[in-house]
């Protein structure tokens, strides 16, 4: 029997398929299409302390093999999430990863303590809680902070340090591919006591509207995702995996079983699927099975056998 079980630090996953932040909401839209128990995990939409209305104007532009988005971290806020969404998510038998965004150190600090407190309260009530926090220091679409933290290692360090100090929940840091020194970032995460790293977030990109002679996006730049970025994402995951002993969750343009195994081969412990959900909303229902089939065909007995072979 081919097993897809895997671990990201102390977190055990049924399979390496995690749904990426911002493409899966809090699971509910997809739960209508298929049972989410087939997933390794779900990373929530990026959450901030206060609700955010997101960016105005065009938010999506398709490119050759890619998708640009400028959502701007629209989200209902952490209190709403903890009060109304988390219980529902906990009904899905899959790992719950809370993606925490922010615009300032204070906001990251406040957000982390809200999560820490909620986890403690739930534990006391004997309820399932938050399996992991994914700290998003890499959102390219908000003016204040967001990716600013993700570009400079020392700026990022402050955010990671403060969140680590506050929470003992498993902590994964989501890196930006736009970071000036990616392996330096990874080393910093390790030094600051993070439990895992995920990458890549979207690449800073641009689209021009000829008629108006302006950028298609009000924020000028937007984040590029999807198959267009896969080869670069794969290279970056490879570099980070070789430079750190932390487990790495790889993503960027994954849509097929072959893509999943490629990321595992460059060293990823697990993977995330973002834009792939838009190409086929049922991707999560079939991908794990397709990975198993491909492994059989390639005579791969376990993910360990191929993890990091390159």
């Amino acid at each position: 029997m081919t097993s897809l079980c895997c671990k990201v630090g102390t977190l055990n996953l049924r399979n390496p398929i995690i749904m990426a932040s911002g493409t899966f909401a809090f699971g509910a839209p997809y739960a209508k299409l298929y049972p989410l128990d087939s997933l390794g995990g779900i990373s929530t939409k990026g959450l901030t302390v206060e609700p955010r209305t997101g960016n105005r104007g065009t938010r999506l532009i398709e490119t050759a093999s890619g998708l640009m988005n400028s959502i701007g971290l629209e989200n209902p806020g952490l209190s709403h999430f903890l009060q109304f969404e988390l219980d529902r998510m906990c009904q899905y038998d899959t790992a719950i990863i809370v993606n925490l965004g922010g615009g300032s150190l204070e906001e990251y600090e406040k957000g982390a303590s809200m999560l820490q407190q909620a986890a403690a309260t739930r534990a006391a009530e004997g309820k399932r809680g938050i399996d992991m926090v994914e700290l998003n220091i890499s959102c390219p679409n908000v003016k204040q902070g967001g990716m600013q933290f993700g570009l400079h290692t020392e700026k990022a360090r402050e955010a990671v340090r403060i969140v680590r100090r506050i929470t003992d929940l498993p902590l994964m840091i989501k890196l930006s591919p736009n970071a000036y020194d990616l392996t330096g970032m990874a080393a910093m995460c390790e030094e600051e006591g993070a439990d895992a790293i995920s990458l890549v977030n979207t690449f800073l990109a641009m689209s021009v509207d000829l008629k108006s002679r302006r950028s298609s996006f009000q924020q000028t730049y937007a984040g590029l995702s999807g198959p267009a970025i896969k080869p670069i994402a794969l290279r970056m995951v490879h570099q980070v995996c070789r430079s750190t002993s932390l487990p790495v969750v790889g993503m960027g343009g994954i849509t097929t079983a072959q893509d999943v195994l490629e990321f595992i081969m460059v060293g990823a412990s697990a993977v995330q699927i973002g834009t792939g959900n838009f190409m086929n909303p049922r991707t999560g229902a079939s991908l794990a099975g397709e990975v198993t089939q491909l492994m059989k065909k390639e005579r791969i007995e376990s993910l360990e056998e191929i993890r990091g072979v390159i």
Partner: protein
Amino acid sequence: MQAVVVNNEPLMEGIYRLTLEGRHGGKAGQFYMLRCWDSFPLLSRPISIHDLSEDSITFLYRVHGGGTELLSKLLPGNSLTLEGPYGNGFPSPQGRTALVGGGMGIAPLLLAAKEMPEADVYLGYSGEAFAESSFRSIRSSGGLTIISGGTILDSLEPHRYDTIMTCGPVPMMEELARRCAGSGASLYVSVEKRMACGIGACNGCAVETPSGIKKACVDGPVFPVEEVNFHDLALL
């Protein structure tokens, strides 16, 4: 879900009527996400339900760019993928009702006209009319006004209606909203936004409303006019 093409007929230059086999769900104003290609273009295309029967579903679309161009190449017997029905659809009619369509915006109104047999139907085309014969066949005894090459709005007296539902170009709907103001008629508009998921997962289809940001794909595409900001709608 896969469905087989029964027919994909050009009604005029760049306008097609696509009929698929099978019993599909939905009501007027709802839409499906369609694709007849494998990976690229990346996203499926939102298209309104034009008509439904026991054993078929019909869409009416204009070739706009790459995706609809691929749809237009479909032949009988080919299959395509559709997900839906999505969105809220038109509300149930209250009192005297008018359905007002402009250009491609007539697409969702055929099923609406069937579901609301008492409603008067107004169709406006900037050029030659298309698909109007389908409307004529269900409004043979009146209640149908068609204008080609002019504005349909001059034919409509909003104060004669309690409810008006519209789908069409933003400037037309905005002008209609102006004319409806103070007429006593409640106006509902069907909006278009770019969509990645169609199911409320990506926040791509945001609509600015006085009660906060809403999603065109699940809270819409039909909104009471008080909820929409035409300036925001113009920014696709």
